[in-house]
Structure formats: C-alpha cells, structure tokens
C-alpha cells in the first residue's frame, strides 16, 4: 500500500471507509487523485480475524459511549454503526434495495418531508453501478417500480423463515420477492459463495458478503490510495480563508495532522455531525458547514418493529442471511392514511438477539424466559423497515462528557411523531396478518426497535435549508464534502446502504467533472 506524508497535502482525505467513504476513496484514487482514507476502527482480515460468535464479534461495532434520550431513545451499538475499515457494511444485513423514484421528490409528489436536489433517473444509473460493484444477488425480475436490469448474481435459495414470509404474502394477496442481497450466490474473484452460516450481522468470515472491506477498499489500495486504520479524527482544521486544510486524528496514542486540499466526511449520521460540531472555531462558532444551523438536526432512523410467532415445524432461522425475502407492497401502494412507506422482511435472530426480543417485548425473565427460549428453533418473525419523517427536534448534539479520545460524547435525541406511530401500527397489523396466515401461533409484537440513521447534514437546494448541495459539497466551505447517510433529506422505506453507495459513486463523477473544469 502506498503511504503519504502527513505534511504533504493530499488531494483528498476521507474520514470514514464505509458505504459512503470507500467508493469515493476508490473512485478518486482511480481518477488519479492522491487519497488517504482514515477509519477509527481496525483493518480486519475476515478469514483470519472473525469468530462465529455474537459476543466476540462485537469487535466490529461502534461501542463507544453515546447518550440516547428523547421519548423513544434509539438503540445504538450493534444495531447501527460499525467501527472497522469498511464501516457498518462489515456487519450490515446486506439488503440492497432501491428507493422508490417518487421519494426523491417526496415533498412535491407525495406531500411530505423534503425534495432531493437529484433526479431519480440519474440515481437509477448509479444504482446499477452500485449493484455491479457489490455483485448483488437478486431476482431476475423485480415486482415493483420502474424496470431495472437483472441483478449481477442470481437470487439465493430461501430458508425457512423466508418461505414463511412468502406464504403469508400469498395468503394476503401481496407480491413478495427474494431479497436483492450483497452476498454472493456464486464465486466472484477470490471470494467464496455464501455458506449460509447466518452470522451476517456480526461480520462475514468467508468474504461472501460484498462489504466495502472486500469490494472498494482493495480497489482503492490498488489504485494508490492509503487506508489508515485505528485513526480517530477529532477535528477538521480550517484556515483564515475559510477553507479546510486537513484533519487532526488520534493514532497510536498521539494526535497527528494530515494536510489535505479537500476533506470528505463520511462518518455516518452520528459521527459526521459530531465531527463538524466539534470542529467549531472562532470563525465558525456553531461548527463547520453549519450556517443553516442544521448540522445534527433532522436525524432520522427507521421503524424496525416486528411480529414474531411460533411454527409447529422447525424453522431454524439461524441459518442463512436473515432477510432472504421481502415485500415492498406498502412502499408502492399509496392507499393508506399516513405518509411514507415501509417494507417487511424475514428475520433470523441469533440467540442473544432473540433473548433481547423476548425480554424486551414480552418482559420475560426467570424460569418463564428459560422455557420460552427452548422454542428458539420454532420461532419465526417479520420485521419492517419503515420511513420516519424528518423532524428538526430529533438531533445529535455534544455533551460535556468526554470519551476515551478526550472528545465530547454525543447525545442522540429521538421521539416518534404521530405519522411514525400510525405507520408502525399499520405495519404491525399487516405483518401479524401475514404471520398468522402462514401458520404461526402465539404471535406477539416487538414494538420498540429502530435501525439505520440519516439526515444530520441534509442535502438541499439552498444554504438556508440544507448543509450540502447536490454534489455533496458543503455550502459554507467549498473544499469540505459530506457523503454518507447524513445527507438524506428523507429516508424512504428501504435499507440505506445501496443508496449511500450510489450517491458515493455519483459524487466521484461530480468531483471529477468539477475538477476538470477547475471548480474544486
């Protein structure tokens, strides 16, 4: 791997190497720019480093202290962000769905949230490129939305839990499909196909999962980029002219400074605003790129409620990726009395996840819990991914408490709105109907779960109502860019990773275009 001097300004320093950062690092390096990618987490070699164990694999999660509050505090840790080269794509559930086109004009066409400054047809092209980058295994034809090309790899075989979803949907007259998913159904290069071990959400030890760690990162290194792991960025430096000059980061016990002509922040919707806010200086007392006051605001997560039940047969949901079937019916059907959409997917909780569900949703403990756990192999569940509406009161702020780096611990405040609650109620009813139609009994609801993060540096049309423009460039500081889940003005009813990768690929092209006309 090529290495750069800290004192020499590189063209780009990218903070974060996940779905937002890694495609940029690779794409910019391939375009001939000098690029350094920094990540707070380690550079794992999954074949040698990853155990098949929920507890040991907490090594890939972001487990630093964060304070959660509000009426509906968000569960962080294993649920949301990763601390590893490759970011949360190292442990994501690999579900790779496209946005419904109308969501890019949610305000104009659907009457809620905000419009994106990007046209859906343009993104459609980048979705295709993202799907090829990740060799998505998906259905030959997709039941919803405008036509899309066939997925690069074929759909996976369904496990028992996925088949239950399909049976439920067929009983309800809803369409379903094998989920487009970023794990291989056939060999690719040196990577083995998926062996259905079922530990996807704690890290794939076979490299079948097409995380950024095994896709963009090797490309970036081949193209001459440097990946510096275990490098926690604490502050972005800005000169008197109001341009970013580089980043301060802690590595091997010492604060260092990497000079750069451009800084790209891709730390996801908590760390990105945290870094921008913590970089406040005399010139930008409210934090960088924050003249709108919106850095950290409009935080969104997605409703991730579920229904679970028992089948008489053995389902053994621990086998195979957890979400092998999906129905997007309610993303594309507008006959409902709330805004936004949602999909639901099959579930495959491992034992610790499962005991969390039973204790959290049924309040079980003692002998009752231990007995109930013995039905583990018969449990089956459906879980929604639902769009929550942007609300400026949901936000990320800094506290006075310091973490192990000496940086202020973030506070994450979240409360559901009435629309969010209406959607959750609708989805729980629908999913319960589906699960019971498939033959499950003793059905109960998991009412409090959320997942994914968005919105704390939103993209928009003008500097008053957004943080970055359509090129992911901050309005306030022309050589400061943001590219991750935080730029989403609305979050849609599907998992975010594919859209983040598509936006990242688009940003590569935008930067190349701007550079070629001298606009960097």
């Amino acid at each position, binding site marked *: 791997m090529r290495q750069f001097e800290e004192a020499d300004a590189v063209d780009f320093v990218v903070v974060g190497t996940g779905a937002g950062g890694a495609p940029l690092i690779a794409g910019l390096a391939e375009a001939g720019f000098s690029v350094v990618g920094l990540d707070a987490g380690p550079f794992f070699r999954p074949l*040698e*480093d*990853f*155990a*098949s*164990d929920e*507890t*040991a694999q*907490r090594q890939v*999660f*972001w*487990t*630093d*202290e*964060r*304070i*959660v*509050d509000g009426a509906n*505090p968000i*569960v962080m*840790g*294993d649920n949301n*962000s990763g601390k590893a080269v490759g970011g949360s794509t190292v442990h994501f559930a690999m579900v790779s769905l496209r946005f419904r086109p109308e969501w890019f004009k949610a305000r104009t066409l659907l009457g809620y949230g905000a419009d994106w400054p990007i046209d859906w047809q343009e993104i459609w092209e980048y979705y295709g490129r993202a799907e090829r980058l990740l060799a998505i295994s998906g259905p030959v034809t997709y039941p919803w939305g405008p036509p899309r090309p066939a997925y690069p790899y074929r759909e996976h*075989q*369904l*496990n*028992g839990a996925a*088949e239950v979803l399909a049976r439920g949907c067929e009983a309800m007259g809803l369409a379903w499909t094998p989920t487009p998913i970023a794990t291989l159904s056939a060999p690719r290069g040196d990577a083995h196909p998926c*062996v*259905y*071990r*079922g*530990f996807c959400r704690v890290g794939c*030890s*076979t490299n079948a999962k097409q995380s950024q760690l095994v896709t963009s990162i090797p490309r970036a290194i081949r193209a001459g980029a440097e990946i510096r792991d275990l490098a926690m960025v604490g502050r972005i430096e800005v000169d008197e002219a109001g341009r970013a000059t580089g980043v301060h980061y802690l590595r091997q016990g010492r604060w260092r400074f990497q000079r750069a002509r451009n800084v790209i922040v891709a730390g996801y919707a908590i760390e990105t605003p945290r870094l921008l806010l913590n970089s406040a200086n005399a010139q930008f007392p409210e934090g960088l790129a924050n003249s709108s006051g919106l850095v950290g605001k409009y935080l969104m997560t997605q409703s991730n409620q579920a229904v679970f039940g028992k*089948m008489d*047969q*053995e389902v*053994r949901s*621990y*086998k*195979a990726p957890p979400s092998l079937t999906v129905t997007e019916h309610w993303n594309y059907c507008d006959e409902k009395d709330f805004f936004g959409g949602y999909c639901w997917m099959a579930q495959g909780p*491992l*034992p*610790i996840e499962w*005991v*969390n569900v039973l*204790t959290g949703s049924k*309040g079980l*403990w*003692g002998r009752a*819990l*231990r*007995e109930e*756990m*013995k039905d*583990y*192999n018969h449990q089956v569940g459906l879980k929604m991914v639902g769009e929550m509406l942007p609300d400026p009161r949901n936000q990320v702020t800094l506290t006075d408490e310091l973490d192990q780096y000496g940086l202020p611990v973030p*506070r*994450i405040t979240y409360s559901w709105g009435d629309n969010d609650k209406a959607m959750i109620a609708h989805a729980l009813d629908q999913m319960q109907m589906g699960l019971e139609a498939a033959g499950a009994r003793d059905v109960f609801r998991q009412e409090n779960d959320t997942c994914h993060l968005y919105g704390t540096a939103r993209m928009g049309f003008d500097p008053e109502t957004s943080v970055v423009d359509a090129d992911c460039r901050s309005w306030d500081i022309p050589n400061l860019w943001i590219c991750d889940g935080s730029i989403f003005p609305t979050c849609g009813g599907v998992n975010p990773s594919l859209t983040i990768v598509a936006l990242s690929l688009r940003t590569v092209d935008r930067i190349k275009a701007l550079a070629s006309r001298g606009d960097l």
Partner: protein
Amino acid sequence: MSERYPGYDVLSKRDGPSWNEPTRSAIDARLNVPREPRFFTPQEWRTLQALCDAIFPQDGDVDPVPLAAYVDQKMAENHTDGYRHGALPRQGEAWRRGLSALEAEAGAAHGTGFHDLAAEKREDLIRRMQAGKLEDSGWGGMPPATFFEHRVIPDITHAFYAHPKGWSEIGYGGPASPRGYVRLRIDRRDPWEPAEAKPGDKAAARRKNQRVR
C-alpha cells in the same frame, strides 16, 4: 426442566469444520472466565449472585453458568454497549448503585439483605423494580425500571446465551465457519445440527445428537 435436545452438546463440534481458530480461542476464553470478582465488592457480589439466581434460575443444573462472573467481567473490562440511556450513569456506576439500592429496598421492606430473601420475596422485589415501583433514595435518581431494562436483563441473560450451555439447551447450531449449512428449509436439519426430541422418540434424537460433530 424438560430436555428438548437430549445428548446435544455444541462443544462436540469444537474440533470439527464448524469452528475456526478465532472461534475456538474466543470460546475457550469464555469458558475460563475468572470466577472471583474483579469489579464488584464482596457485598455487591453477593447481591449480584442472588439477583442472577432470580433473573435466570439454574438451581438443579449440574454445571451452572457463572452469570455473575460474566457481569463482573463486562464491568471490569469495560465492554460497553455503544449507547447509554440518558437517565442512567455509566454502566459500572449504574450496577453499583442498583445493587446497593436493592439491598436497601430489601432492608426497608423485610429487614434483611437482598441475598437473604426467600425466593418469592426476591422475585416480588424484582417485579416491582421492573414496574418502576421502587423509590428508595439509594437509586439516586436512576429509574429502577430503566436500570432493570438496560442493565439487569441484558447483562445477565446475554451471559447465559453467549455460553455453549445456553446454545445446547435451545438447540442452536452454534459457530459455523468454515462449514455453514446446506439444508435451509423448514423441518430440514443438517447432520451437524441438533435434533429435537419428538414426543415419544427421545432416543432417536439422542442418537442423532451424539453423532453431531
């Protein structure tokens, strides 16, 4: 308690193709957890053990999982969750405060220590903690129900289901790398997965489970 997967021990797969080296070393370390407290004081340790016995009873088990030891390990080595409810102090402080508050509650209600309470009284106290109905000043503003939900329940129950004994009991296939699974459909079982005892045919399940490698 009924044995659902007779004769199944997930550790019989330890040296087979389902376990890779990182898994073996992680589980070996887990099985060798220090049995003496490093974080908790002797008084806290006794309260914690009594709490573990109530939250996850193992009376009658031949080789109970040392749940309190895993809670102590988590605190001593500061394995954080990655988030903390705004109403709770840091995890170690929350545990110390919660355990001493439970002792105070037991003393106030029954004039005895929490660990000396009869099982029913102990469970009753826990139910009131779960419902947020404890009000001793020892809680110091920490809501008992939040402490119960965010500290007591996850820290204790996760310890059991992170242990091979927990996996064997619920018929979980356990670690799986490099070997994963072939038969994914409903009511299909790979020969290296546990077999569930069907009514009246426990012996067949036991035979299959003894062949699991």
